[in-house]
């Protein structure tokens, strides 16, 4: 088996698994076990991919290309860059944990549920590996379908409103992107991301950026975020904030910035300002949020802002910090949402006024939550600290005040994380916290612990990612392909 096949296997294995789950008349347990097994095999394939990837070499690796619809220069073209490897890894690890969580809590209608989870995994990996704009768009949209049904069927009481908002918001952005893709591709004569020329069109850049900013989400496009993160089942919120949001940021990194260098620098200040606003505003909202999931949801908004600061810093320091932070925050927020689910299962609520005092007699829960809290408030030595430091150092080279705002936000992060920890673990015992509410069970521990372990590993050795991001994919700017000028 050549290494190039690994790229395609990572996309199509979960999708094949989804079909198997749908078609085979298996029992509830067999279905869940099969899904978990497939997602673990997926992790295995990713480890294989990461170990064979040559991080010292820049450029696309393990690429595969096949004709799809040839005449417009559209092909099935997949491959990975250094940073894609890490994001694919984040995806497979987080979705494996979340699939396991769904199995553990025993979601009803298991065949539909697990099939959709696997489909979501495949589509998300596809987003991170596509090297063709139409293929990228297809996977980007394909993520939406399982998410819509997963939230709409297995979500909380106000799930229908949440899904309508979520879908309309994201599709509005995606369709703008489709229009931009059509315009870009027809001018360039190819939809290929690797060979495509750069473009100087500001309109097209905005078409892409709005789609990514909605997905990320970035202020002021975050209207769908609180509802979806609260109403979705906890493991789906974990995937949403841990992985799907990163697809939007990845889009900026892979498409918006390298394909549109001139517009990206033209709008740099505006985007940095929005990102800084998202960072501060999201942190303040997180501090004011009345419930567990609200804090994590708004902190994701803040973190998306921070990562965007790094991406648009225009320096390689900021870029590697952003990639590191994407992975670190993905792991943190996924674990936090899973823990929110764990707490909600015991107390039926996530509201702080009904919670509190859960640390007593529940050491595992307390330890997990404390560890995650400490990492996410970027205590020196943590993965988040390394990421944030690199981002701030990177953006400092742009202008010093961005770094000041970013540093201020770290203080805010400490405020909301400590509030979360004390609201759940400490203070007086909440009215819904029964004595017999159990500690984190071994199965739950087995789901969250690997994510936390990954974080601790990254804390110990952040250079694993930040030194192995590879340069940003530069577009071929040879004299033969002059930059396009578009209206």
């Amino acid at each position: 088996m050549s290494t190039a096949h690994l790229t395609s296997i990572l996309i199509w294995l979960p999708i094949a698994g989804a079909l198997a789950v749908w078609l085979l008349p298996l029992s509830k347990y067999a279905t869940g076990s099969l899904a978990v097994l497939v997602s673990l095999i997926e992790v295995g394939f990713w480890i294989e991919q990461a170990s064979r990837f040559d991080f010292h070499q820049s450029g696309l690796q393990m690429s595969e290309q096949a004709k799809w619809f040839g005449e417009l220069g559209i092909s099935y073209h997949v491959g990975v860059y250094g940073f894609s490897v890490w994001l694919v890894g984040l995806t497979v690890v987080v979705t494996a944990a979340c699939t396991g969580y769904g199995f553990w809590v025993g979601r009803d209608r298991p065949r539909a549920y697990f099939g959709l989870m696997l489909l979501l995994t495949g589509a998300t990996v596809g987003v991170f590996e596509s090297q063709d704009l139409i293929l990228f768009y297809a996977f980007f949209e394909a993520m939406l379908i399982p998410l819509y049904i997963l939230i709409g069927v297995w979500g909380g009481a106000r799930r229908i409103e949440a899904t309508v908002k979520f879908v309309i918001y994201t599709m509005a952005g995606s369709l703008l992107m489709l229009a931009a893709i059509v315009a870009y591709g027809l001018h360039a004569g190819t939809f290929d991301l690797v060979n495509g020329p750069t473009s100087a069109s500001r309109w097209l850049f905005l078409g892409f950026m709005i789609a990514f900013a909605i997905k990320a989400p970035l202020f002021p496009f975050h209207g769908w975020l609180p509802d979806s993160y609260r109403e979705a089942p906890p493991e789906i919120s974990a995937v949403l904030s841990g992985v799907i949001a990163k697809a939007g940021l990845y889009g900026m990194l892979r498409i918006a910035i390298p394909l549109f260098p001139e517009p990206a620098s033209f709008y740099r200040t505006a985007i940095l300002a929005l990102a800084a606003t998202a960072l501060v505003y999201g942190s303040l909202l997180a501090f004011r949020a009345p419930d567990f999931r609200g804090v994590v949801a708004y902190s994701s908004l803040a973190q998306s802002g921070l990562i965007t600061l790094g991406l648009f810093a225009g320096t390689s320091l900021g870029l590697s910090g952003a990639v590191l932070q994407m992975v670190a925050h993905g792991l943190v927020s996924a674990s936090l949402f899973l823990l929110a689910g764990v707490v909600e299962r015991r107390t039926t609520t996530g509201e702080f006024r009904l919670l509190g005092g859960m640390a007593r007699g529940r050491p595992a829960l307390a330890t997990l939550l404390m560890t995650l809290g400490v990492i996410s408030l970027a205590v020196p030595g943590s993965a988040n600290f390394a990421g944030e430091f690199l981002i701030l150092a990177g953006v400092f080279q742009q202008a010093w005040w961005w770094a000041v705002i970013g540093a201020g936000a770290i203080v805010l992060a400490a405020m909301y994380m400590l509030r979360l920890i004390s609201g759940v673990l400490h203070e007086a015992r909440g009215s819904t916290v029964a004595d017999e509410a159990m500690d984190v069970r071994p199965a739950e521990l087995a789901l969250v612990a690997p994510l936390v372990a990954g974080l601790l590993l990254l804390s110990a050795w952040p250079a694993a990612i930040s030194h192995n991001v590879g340069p940003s994919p530069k577009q071929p700017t040879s004299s033969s392909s002059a930059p396009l000028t578009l209206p």
Partner: protein
Amino acid sequence: MTIHTPHIDWFALSTILVLLAASFVSLLGAVLVPAPRRRTFSAIVSKLGFLGGLVTSIWLYVDSPHGEAVVSGAFYRDRWTALAQIILCGVGLATTLLSWEHALPQRGGRNDDHIAEFFALLLASAAGMAFFVGAGNLMVLFLSLEWFSIALYVMCAIDYDVEGSLEAGLKYLIVGSFGSAALLFGSALVYGATGTISFSGIATAIGAHGLSGDALLVVGIALLVAGLGFKMSAAPFHMWTPDVYEGAPTPVTAWMSAATKVAALVLAMRLMQTAFPLERHLWSVAFAVIAVASLVIGNLTALVQTNVKRMLAYSSISHAGFMLIGLSAGTALGGRAVMYYLIPYSAMAFGSFAVVAARERELGKPVTLENLAGFGWERPFLGVAMWLFMFGFAGLPVGGGFVGKFYVFAAAYDAGRAWLVVVGVLATLVSLYYYLGVVRAMYMRGPQLALAGGSPPRDRFLHVAVGMALVVSVGSLFAVAPLIDLARNAASAVF
């Protein structure tokens, strides 16, 4: 005095002849076959007829790489005609399977009296459409239009025990006649201006006599566009669509929504491109305006529908709009965009109405968004098929609808009409709301009504038909290259 009959290329007409022959056999069955066996007999005849049509039209496609006009220029034997005939026969085959169990359901045994006539009419309308798509002059155009329209009028009204069916037939007859009259009048004016009825002759005459912009000609083209607009149910000629689609027996609706649109769009493209290439600046703008009107009216009105058949009717209006975006480009890219779009579209349109037919039969009353609740969990296969059709209609990448939309947008952008892309994008966004409404109703609300009990009626053939639609709809996403090659070869006959 001797009459010189033209040389007739019988092979070019073989699809039509096969379908017509099957229609006659089925009609004979109405008289000769005893009542209990009539349904099976005529359904098998219809199936064989469409299979035969499929074989001959594929053969014609392979055998006609260089298009030519045959029978004194009255009929085009080329790949454009053949590909349209292939799609029509495919839809006809699926409709036969659906009608086998679902057309004229037995209520006290009476309705079976007319099942053989039903299949005869289905085959006759298909033959008319197969003739229509190859029309080479205005006379054939009008004759074949009336041919399939009259068959459809009767099919809409055939279930006369049901209140809406008769009304639908009557409405379609009156409004449809209006459309036919417009078309006929337009043909007369064009003949008056150019002195010829053959498509290619018209183009030559316009060029030779410098008739471009001639008032008579322009009014004639406008009336032709309006007449075709009625058949493709594009706004503002769409008024009959929701009522007729709602009232007609659901298998008939499924057939009409897929096949009529194929026939009308394919013919419109050929007529405009062959007869009026010099007037492209006029008709391409006219079709662009009609496209926008269809997109706006179809999508906004669909938002407030609760009856699923009505909602799908408005959705078919909006899809006419999408395909007209491709038509209005007036380029070869637009041609193959429309041809490609028609393949997944007809599969999805047919399939969604077939699923509605299944639900209608088990409820015994019209399907609304409310009584669709829980359907997805009760009938997993039909539920999955329906959501794939709905997401496909909305242009999400689960079917060829995505590629179709991409292609028509590309054609519009290529023709310098970026604003049409913007309108199309906004329309897609609006359409999401009601397409997802169906998915929401099927899966996210608990069942609110107790069904009559017992197992659902047996509908094996319906499942096969929906399966066919599903394979085409999803398969066209993966097999883009071969399908586009087919469409390109077909379009090269016209452009």
